[in-house]
């Protein structure tokens, strides 16, 4: 095995890690905010709001992420009012196109996770709170959300890992993340197996860190299951 080459490759690819992480973290945060909004629509009393949420989820879960990235990157420039809007300086940059597509995509999955987590809160515990005079925001803040967080955290952690891996698709619109750098290196050296193996190991390490972090957070939030 050509250790010096592998080390050199790792050194090059590691310079893409900050971009990979920035893509993932930005999209995760923006996606979460969107997901909360979509989940709120999905749980609304008004049927049209629920339809909009269902359509949104179906749209983004039912089409490939790569296609979504292409639509944002190549398609949005054709729309006149977007070109005239404040968003255009952002949409001209591949980075923000990738963030937008990733955020929209992860928010659809996130909304489903949030909805499931809220639905998992035992109805009778909510009833006990109501029977005591709790309602509205107080009921959500004290009883529903803390429990939903416990139920949803593991799933959202999985989504974060899927998202991290999905950022590699951003390389197709010229971004030099870990995958983008790997691809460029391959086109120079033609040593694709070694280079993509190193890239894979880097993703594996990042995934492991995230999974461990989520696991620790989960343990902290559910002290009753530790004993």
């Amino acid at each position: 095995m050509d250790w010096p080459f592998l080390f050199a490759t790792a050194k090059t690819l590691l310079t893409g890690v900050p971009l990979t992480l920035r893509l993932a973290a930005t999209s995760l945060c923006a996606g979460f905010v969107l997901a909360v909004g979509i989940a709120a629509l999905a749980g609304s009393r008004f049927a049209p709001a629920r339809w909009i949420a269902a359509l949104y989820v179906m749209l983004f879960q039912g089409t490939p992420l790569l296609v979504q990235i292409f639509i944002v990157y190549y398609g949005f420039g054709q729309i006149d009012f977007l070109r005239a809007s404040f968003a255009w300086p952002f949409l001209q940059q591949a980075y923000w196109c990738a963030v937008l597509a990733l955020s929209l995509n992860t928010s659809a999955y996130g909304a489903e996770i949030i909805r499931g987590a809220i639905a998992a809160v035992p109805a009778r515990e909510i009833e006990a709170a109501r029977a005591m005079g709790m309602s509205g925001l107080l009921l959500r803040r004290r009883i529903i959300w803390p429990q939903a967080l416990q139920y949803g955290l593991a799933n959202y952690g999985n989504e974060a890992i899927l998202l991290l891996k999905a950022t590699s698709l951003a390389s197709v619109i010229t971004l030099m993340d870990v995958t983008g750098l790997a691809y460029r290196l391959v086109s120079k050296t033609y040593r694709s197996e070694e280079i993509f193996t190193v890239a894979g190991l880097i993703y594996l390490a990042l995934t492991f860190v995230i999974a461990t972090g989520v696991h620790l957070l989960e343990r902290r939030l559910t002290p009753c299951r530790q004993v």
Partner: protein
Amino acid sequence: MEPIQSATGALSASPVISATGLTKRYDALDVLRGVDLDAHEGEVISILGASGSGKSTFLRCLNLLEVPSGGAFNVLGEDVRFRMKGAERQIADARQVNRLRSQVGMVFQNFCLWNHRTVLQNVMEGPVHVQGRNRHEVREEAEKALDRVGLLNRADYYPSQLSGGQQQRVAIARAIVMRPRVLLFDEPTSALDPELVGEVLKVMQGLAAEGRTMLIVTHEMAFARDVSSRVVFLEKGTVRVQGAPQDLFKGGMDERFDRFVSHFSRQG
């Protein structure tokens, strides 16, 4: 209906809870068909009846967990206000309902403790966050309440670490720190293993002896006979018969009630 002498001998002017002609229907099913019941200060009322006779529904109406389809309803001297939306009755004033609920304690068959909070946090939740009382004072009172149900040494446990009987005693402590004017119990011992029933009944007996106003749905005949000041027998959504336990349990007042009791004694 005549006002009934309370356990302390006092005769209070207006009932704590008063239901007149309470009805509840689900689609085609008439669950309550006009229930009249006044609960006066200090009364301990056992509500008996076969499964499906509407006992839980009645109790849940008193706490407005169900909106009654018809009838008038007064809690602590306040008429509960409803409004019509189409053919359906709704609560008119959510703030009124929350206010009333915080003064009407409810203990459920399945305890319904909040699993993400410790025993002490469960007990302190209502007084601190619903009633806005001082945390330090509440803590003292909560510890007193836990001591009283014999669980002060479990204050930092989570509900999942307790037996059913212990959970139900915590639920009772959680209800009484709200300083409710009336306590509602819906089959508080039915989900318990037989050997755990006694510890919960003992706590309830202590509350009754304090002169608290209580409405208890139960299948514990001995408890109904010995502890309550009045027994109400529900059948198919109406009050079939009611009276002092010594009169009713003597037998001969109502044939259906006698048969119901003998059925349970045979089982027990």
